[in-house]
């Protein structure tokens, strides 16, 4: 489906199929079209082109109140004038179910989200986490064909967020309902989802299981958005099957796996290596091993790993994670080192003018701020 607001393309030909009972995440920076996609599935926006099928039936023109999907809103949107019980019963009453059945189902759902004692409270008397669970119960009690969650954890603090991640997963297993989940938090998506659709500027960049996306990102954007990625610019010299040989500037040539289709010799590419797959040497590796020389800029002890930031001769900032017990006595800022890796651990990606950043989330946020379209209505 496609959604345009005036000239602004919020969602550009997004296409995917979600299986029943799946925990599916739409992940991307703000303004990437994930919320608009969710609102189209919920029925609040109509696709400009394309269709939404729910168990085979085209529901693109069906209003939200006749669609068998329910939403957990970002700020929960609990009805402040109703008690927890009445909030949860709202959907069942709208469907005019018999009183007895409503009571049984509300009770049962309150038990699942562990809110039975608070049934007579109003939303204002609940903590953020409790409100979140009311929102969840209010949607789930209708046994929708799919539950849509719009950044449901964004309003919670870190600790609660992590607890709720597991809680959401537990509830999803318990009720067996399809969850479609929108988030900009890659860790959240990796933790909870069966599959992730990574979106950028209205397009779906890649769909796959978390490990698949992490290990074999389809694009430079995906590589940078999910986890950290070191990227080295190079040129394809040879293509064969699912591997490509790449010349890395002056630092030599290597052959690494690729999932990018249609690569030809002469194409500009980026060789991606995850920080934990990179190794540091204090002496130049002997050919045929490839080593990228650089200077250590900073060392950060992060518990299980030591994060080593360095800058290469080509002024690329790269990161390697080394085990703190590794014997690298010469590792200190200013030290000259060579970054090397097993070619099989690297991936060859098509280079793009818009290169996702290496390094920490703050940098990602900065790049995001520069690239997110300013047009209103992209995301809410």
């Amino acid at each position, binding site marked *: 489906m496609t959604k345009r607001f005036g000239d602004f393309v919020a969602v550009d030909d997004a296409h995917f199929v979600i299986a029943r009972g799946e925990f599916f995440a739409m992940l991307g920076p703000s303004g990437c079209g994930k919320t608009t996609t969710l609102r189209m599935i919920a029925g609040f926006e109509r696709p400009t082109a394309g269709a939404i099928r729910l168990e085979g039936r085209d529901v693109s023109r069906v209003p939200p*109140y006749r669609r068998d999907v329910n*939403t957990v809103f970002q700020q929960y949107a609990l*009805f*402040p004038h109703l008690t927890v019980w009445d909030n949860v019963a*709202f*959907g069942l009453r709208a*469907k005019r179910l018999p009183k007895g059945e409503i009571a049984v189902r509300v009770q049962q759902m309150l038990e699942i989200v562990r809110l039975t004692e608070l049934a007579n409270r109003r939303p*204002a008397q609940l903590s953020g986490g409790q409100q979140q669970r009311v929102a969840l119960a209010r*949607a789930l009690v209708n046994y929708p064909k799919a539950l849509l969650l719009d950044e449901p954890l964004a309003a919670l603090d870190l600790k609660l967020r992590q607890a709720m991640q597991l809680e959401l997963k537990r509830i999803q297993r318990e009720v067996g309902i399809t969850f479609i989940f929108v988030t900009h938090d890659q860790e959240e998506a990796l933790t909870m989802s069966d599959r992730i659709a990574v979106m950028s500027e209205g397009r779906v960049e890649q769909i796959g299981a978390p490990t698949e996306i992490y290990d074999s990102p389809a694009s430079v954007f995906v590589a940078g958005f999910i986890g950290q990625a070191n990227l080295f610019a190079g040129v394809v010299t040879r293509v064969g099957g699912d591997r490509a040989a790449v010349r890395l500037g002056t630092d030599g040539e290597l052959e690494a796996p690729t999932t990018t289709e249609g690569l030809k010799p002469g194409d500009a590419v980026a060789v991606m290596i995850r920080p934990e797959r990179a190794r540091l040497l204090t002496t130049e590796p002997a050919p045929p091993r490839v080593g990228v020389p650089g200077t250590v800029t900073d060392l950060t002890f992060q518990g299980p790993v030591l994060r080593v930031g360095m800058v290469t001769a080509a002024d690329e900032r790269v990161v390697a994670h080394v085990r703190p017990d590794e014997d690298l006595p010469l590792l200190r800022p200013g030290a000259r080192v060579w970054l090397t890796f097993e070619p099989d651990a690297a991936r060859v990606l098509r280079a793009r003018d818009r290169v996702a950043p290496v390094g920490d989330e703050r940098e990602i946020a900065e790049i995001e701020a520069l690239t997110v379209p300013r047009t209103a209505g992209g995301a809410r």
Partner: protein
Amino acid sequence: MRRGRGHGDGTVTSPAGRVGRVLVNLAAAGGLVYLFLPIFVIVLFSFNKPKGKFNAVWQEFTLENWADPFKNRPLVDALYVSLRVALISMVVATVLGTFVALALVRYRFRGGQITNLLLVLPLTAPEILLGASLLTLFLEPHLVLANRQFTLGFTTIVIAHIMFCVSYVAMTLKARLRGFDWTLEDAAMDLGAGPIRTFLRVTLPLITPGILAAALLSFALSIDDFIITYFVAGPDVKTFPLQIFGQSRTATPPQINVLATMILVGSVAVLAAGTWWGRRRARRLGLR
């Protein structure tokens, strides 16, 4: 004003500061006296026993007027007319004004901006012009009435009052609706409630305090109006203000003050109850 709780200026002890505070308090007291003196006089003179027909000079204290507040028949009839006019125009204007406000705040549509602007006109246009033009409208058979004429009276008064009250209701409610969380409507629809159920179960209960406030304002404005009513009332129907004005050339019986005091006490009671209820509700729902 005592210093202390909530003022945070309890530490001002310099002589200049103290003088300043005294001046501020004096000014405030002066302002309040200025506001309340006329009202006080109304209440006071409801206990006066005037000599002659005009209740204008203090003579002596009496409870006679209060013992028989409904003695002046035409005055009571006029008050009854006023209450009926105010009630009907309040109900109609509140319903219409609520929908106008909802439409203007909730939806963007062609002409919305202009409607916003035109809504202020009945508030800002001189009342005497409105009155005169309404009179023309009611009497001129070719303009809008398909060759019929209105008989000036109760109906024309109500129509005129609805006209300006709709404006006030819509303006008041528009301000109240600014902070409304419209995702609540999305949530209701998402849960299977159609537009009507969404309005009745979610939107309406949440905006009720605003609607009630607007309705009270409408009622007060209607009871109060003189100029427009004067034009459209015709010769036979008298509202409370019209009756007092008409009588005042020949007599101002103290019953005027008694009835006015009753209205005053009634309004204060309604306002106090409304404020108390609104605060309690806001606390329970955790609003603002």
